[in-house]
């Protein structure tokens, strides 16, 4: 038995080495090389911003608290919300009193800032990654009145921005309709910067 083990150990170790080089170095290196040529923007993280200045990634959500910005999903990352160096959800169960309490608090805050009545579910529940960049068009329109008021813009202008940023289901049937909150808020800021319609930055 011992002889069998010693006899098999050599190919076992060598096989591990060569397969490691193949799948652990050659494969990722080859994919990286091709990806950097074929899809350079995506391969580097879909970064946005001009020159050397990085303003974020179009795939990663950012926290917005000011009333003049659209708010995204609640984020349970720690210590600060939308911490891209520590993704994760709240992991609260549906019957946990702490969960029901935070949902009630978020709903009350949203009703106070926007309007009474039904609140979009994704605005009171934390996302899985804590970095969800999207809300539904419904949840964006729900906030349009507030944002327009805070910025001194006509509500149709704000609604127009939402319609322009809204993405349909991918290929017409996949996933959900959504609006990227960071990109939408950047639209608001560039509108203010160009001074159209007298909009002002917060």
């Amino acid at each position: 038995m011992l002889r069998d083990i010693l006899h098999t150990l050599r190919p076992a170790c060598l096989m591990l080495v060569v397969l490691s080089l193949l799948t652990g170095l050659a494969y990722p290196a080859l994919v990286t090389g091709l990806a950097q040529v074929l899809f350079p923007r995506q391969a580097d993280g879909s970064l946005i911003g001009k020159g050397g200045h990085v303003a974020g990634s179009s795939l990663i959500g950012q926290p917005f608290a000011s009333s003049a910005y659209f708010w995204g999903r609640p984020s349970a990352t720690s210590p600060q919300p939308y911490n891209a160096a520590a993704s994760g959800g709240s992991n609260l169960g549906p019957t946990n009193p702490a969960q029901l309490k935070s949902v009630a608090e978020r709903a009350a805050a949203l009703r106070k800032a926007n309007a009474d009545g039904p609140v979009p579910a994704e605005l009171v529940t934390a996302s899985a990654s804590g970095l969800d960049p999207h809300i539904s068009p419904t949840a964006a329109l729900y906030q349009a009145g507030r944002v327009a008021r805070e910025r001194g813009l006509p509500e149709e202008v704000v609604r127009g921005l939402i319609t322009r940023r809204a993405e349909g289901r991918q290929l017409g049937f996949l996933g959900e309709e959504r609006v990227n909150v960071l990109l939408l808020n950047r639209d608001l800021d560039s509108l203010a910067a160009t001074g159209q319609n007298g909009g002002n930055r917060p």
Partner: protein
Amino acid sequence: MTTSTDFMQLGLFLLALLALSWPLGGYMAAVLEGRNHPLARILGWLERGLYRVCGVDPTREMDWKEYALAMFLFNVAGFAVLYLLLRVQGLLPLNPDGQTGMAPDLAFNTAMSFITNTNWQAYSGENAASHLTQMLGLTVHNFVSAATGIAVLTALIRGLIRRETRELGNFWTDLVRSTLYILLPLAFVLSLALCWQGVPQTFRGTVNATLAEPVVYEIAPGADALKTDPALKPTPAIATQQAIMRGPMASQEAIKELGTNGGGFFNANSAHPFENPTPLSNFLEMLAILLIPAALCHTFGRMVGDARQGWMLLGAMTALFLGFLALCWWAESQGSPQIAAIIGTPAGNMEGKELRFGVMNSALFATITTATSCGAVNTMHDSLTPLGGLVPMVLMQLGEVVFGGVGSGLYGMVVFAVITVFVAGLMVGRTPEYLGKKIEAFETKMCSLVIMVPLFGVLLGTGWAVLTGMGRGAVANPGAHGFSEILYAFSSMANNNGSAFAGLSANNALYNLLGGIVMCTSRFWTAIPVLALAGSLAGKKAVPTGAGTLPTHTPLFCGLLVAVVLVVGALTFIPALALGPIVEHLQMLGR
């Protein structure tokens, strides 16, 4: 709310799976039988080179003990190297974010987890693994643990089709061919597709972005500081930057799904917008998880010379899968009545879900990832509704045979088929046969082992953890849900799945060590009995089919197989499930 588009997505998904698994199944049969195929003409030199370097004679046949020894030693070597790598990663190159070595218990758990195709992660990828570890450690085992599964399955198929021989093939050729001709080409294509959708693939590290609006937050004082001064207040802080972590993700993401591994680059796994940026990437990832396990059913049919046998196994898996999917999807669409009352409108459960996927694609992913032994998640399972969370738990507890892991799922299902012919044989008083081989005492014993070992792992592990303070102290949610977290953890580790009710703080000595042992026994104490079964079957004569033979390709047999899988699972786990998700569901309705 369920819409017709949801049904269309599901229908197209199943159609795509069906359409791709048939040709892939045939191709894999060609690869595993060593027949000529186009890729062998292109990469044949590499395959022969690998054998030469390792001093392996690819024509030499092994008996079941040699095969098992080669399989086991290869994995032992993999464990040792990975453990070392995790311990010393801080001193090695390709570490742009300065990760340090893992603690011994965490490194033990992680190494065990990745060699066993479990990918249970007691660490979070963001702050525990360097790029070198992700590639040379974790990605490698994503490949070879899946290839090991295919190899063991192939040996079992040879045991069924060969007669009066001890020879089961050569582990090294099965390993190399599975890696080189099946996993690598698929992973290569998928990783580029994922990168196109937005998954990063770079050796550069973290980039700091300036936030559009600075965020004010509080840093809670540490537990130790609070002990000395309970009056400590949280410190206010302000963040103006967002650290965006990057790395060679697409290459790892692809094999993570294809090999039913599930170990994510990030803590949030496939819910992270970098790991799974769009609905299309989500569609491809779900397809990738199911593709090889489904296609192997056809490979089985081709290799045993009766395609209907493969269809029967695929049918049983699909029937179980659709039943559980319906329950999970329904429960998640209903959401929680308490939250509906607060927000003033009925809504699906969105806690722990990403908006781009919504309820349907999250429920579908949760069902797929636990029907197979993948364990990648695009939704936080801990925040699923009680019945929505029961589905992943039960799918794992059934022994990961509903599609299951790459290779391991099908050999588990074949074991259940053997048990089914045994049970049917008892009913009519005839010696049971499967595919022309008599099933006798030794085969039945090996099959029982394969089924029983993970069951013991789940129940004994859970029992041990709830009896200790360290085990109970790790739970995040109160009451029945807390028990579910522990039950889920051991269901996952003992069936080599790797997903979690992630509120559980599993990075402590108890979960790391006990979990590591459970993962190891469940993987190898099933793979080795399967090889013993294969060896015993190979030595038998073929019995001619007679009037009394139970045909194993019929819908009747398929129904019987489904029933046996469900009854074994139900008898074992209903008491435990009653204490966790079932009681929580009643509490949610009764509140």
